[in-house]
């Protein structure tokens, strides 16, 4: 979902910077290619039910978005996108693998009702986003002052609502005319996703004792009393045995 919104956002923002499709030049073709990859993979993230595959699609989507940035001449943002988002997803991937290592291909199943609700909500947000993005006047009207050298600054400026394609003095409503609204919608969207992720990942009490681990197949099953002892030890002593791949405790 994050990938989807980012991809959509960048598609919207960049759609104006790149020449329209009518010109049918290579630039446009590549734009379509990257945009399709970004959107398609974002969709795949939502539809896939395997954590690692989701992460993989997310990487592809973010990579395609980086390609869009490169296409727009914002190489710095593109490289940034690769480094931060794709690198960040890498960590996500690692955690996905670590947490599902025992049962290699853990699937995430969602019920039909959840799907419908999520689809409704996502669709509404997407509509809002598209309306907000498409309501912005197209850039590069005849006679506008284009950037002399490709750089990240116009993109950044565009995202906070400044029309950099016009001389600032001539812009009638500086700060209120650009892509600020879509940008803010996405920001709120991301915030909601973050809160939801924190909710899902929070430490919580279990109603039922956790099932006997798979490794325990070679030992006798742990009795309830023993289990309670283990649980108590875990709660009182070390908080959680997590991320031990990175912990070097040997020497």
């Amino acid at each position, binding site marked *: 979902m994050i990938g989807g919104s980012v991809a959509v956002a960048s598609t919207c923002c960049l759609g104006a910077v790149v020449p329209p499709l009518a010109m049918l030049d290579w630039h446009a073709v590549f734009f379509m290619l990257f945009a399709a990859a970004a959107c398609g993979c974002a969709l795949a993230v939502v539809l896939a039910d395997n954590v690692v595959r989701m992460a*993989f699609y997310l990487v592809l989507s973010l990579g395609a978005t980086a390609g869009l940035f490169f296409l727009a001449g914002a*190489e*710095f943002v593109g*490289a940034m996108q690769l*480094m931060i988002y794709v690198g960040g997803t890498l960590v996500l991937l690692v955690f996905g*693998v670590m947490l599902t290592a025992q049962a290699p291909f853990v699937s995430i199943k969602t019920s039909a009702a959840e799907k419908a609700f999520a689809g409704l909500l996502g669709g509404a947000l997407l509509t809002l986003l598209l309306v907000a993005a498409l309501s912005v006047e197209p850039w590069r009207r005849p006679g506008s002052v284009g950037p*002399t050298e*490709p750089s990240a600054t*116009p993109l950044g400026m565009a995202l906070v609502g400044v029309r950099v394609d016009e001389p600032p003095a001539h812009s009638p409503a*500086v700060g209120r005319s650009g892509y600020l609204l879509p940008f803010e919608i996405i920001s709120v969207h991301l915030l909601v996703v973050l809160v939801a992720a924190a909710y899902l990942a929070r430490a919580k009490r279990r109603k039922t004792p956790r099932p006997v681990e798979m490794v325990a197949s070679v030992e006798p099953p742990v009795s309830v009393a023993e289990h309670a002892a283990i649980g108590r030890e875990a709660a009182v002593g070390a908080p959680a045995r997590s991320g031990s791949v990175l912990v070097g405790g040997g020497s």
Partner: protein
Amino acid sequence: MVEYLIDRVGLPGWLAWTAAASLAAVLILNVIAGGALVFIWAERKIAARIQDRLGPTRTGGKFGWLQSLADGIKLLAKEDLMPDGADGMLFRLAPYVSFCASFCAFIALPFAFDFVGLRLNVAVFFVVAVLGLEVFGVILAGYASASKWSLFGSMREAAQVVSYEVPLGMCVVVPVMLAGSMDMVTIAEKQAGWFWNWYLFHDPFTFVIFWVYVTCAVASVNRAPFDLAEAESELVAGFHTEYSGLRWSFFFMAEYGSMFLVSAMAAVLFLGGWNGPVPLATLAGLSEGTGDTAGYLVRLLGMVNLLGKATLGVLVMMWIRWTLPRLRIDQVMTTCLKYCTPIAAVMFAGAMLWQLFLPGGLVPGMRRPAGEIREGWLEGPGGRGAASAATGSGDLVLAPAAQVRP
């Protein structure tokens, strides 16, 4: 180059474009594919010589120089196996992900003045970012193989590469700071002249940070003593345990590609790029900047220079590999977090102060041009004026694209 081909050689425009593009493509392709073949052969020969053996001696004549080709044919003919429990799609894709990452970074690598696939103004950053993606393929391979050894290998790789990107980034930033640009062409140009103009000899801090860079580069491309991801004595073969045939060879091409890439980066950032230790061309009165035949010859010489330096770097990595034992994962992390990162940070600060207080160096004769930071998106006619005019109006103001000259 296109202008040269049109003006001097008299080619029609489309042909000139095609020729120039092909040259760039061929260079990149050959460095990776051909380079991998050569390096695999070299590795075998070097390993053999280090170990008092002969290595390949028969395939293709006296020195076994066709050995890699024979290996390639063998790998092509090999059965392509996939474990039952594997995640088929990811398992098949993983080698290509690795290879693509390694390959893509070459786009921004300049082989000589103007001999660059795509001249990016953030080339250094781009290369570091793309190089970090190689680990993706490794993690996917380790996960998708459904083998515990593979999983161990990929987890190690992830931990290692993610950690080493920090000091590596710091090392890379120093030449960027000295040159005032992330454009690799500019960085190399700034080191033109005699070898003491190289950033390696710029000041004591850059000299130290070069060695930190070497350490981090070896670690980030997974070569011994940091080859934990495929530690054959512990993890059988690490992340590529379950791979065979051509897919397996893609991992190797990626590895050799990355080795060459970090070596070439070291050459560009610290060792003068395509500038030789002695400025032969300049002494002979030639300039690489001119678009005539002589200029191209000088560039060609520069390319040989850069390839030579990068190859030397790769050979040094091989030498290290066949000499040292492997570190343990916690020691690898310690090396990164407790040694490389603080040293790189201190050297970065030192180089910065040096640049601030002694920009010309200690010896008067060694003056070099100071770095120049440009942010030029509004530098066009009227752009700067408009920006500064708006400063007073109290509106939201664009960052003025002023030229900062220390």
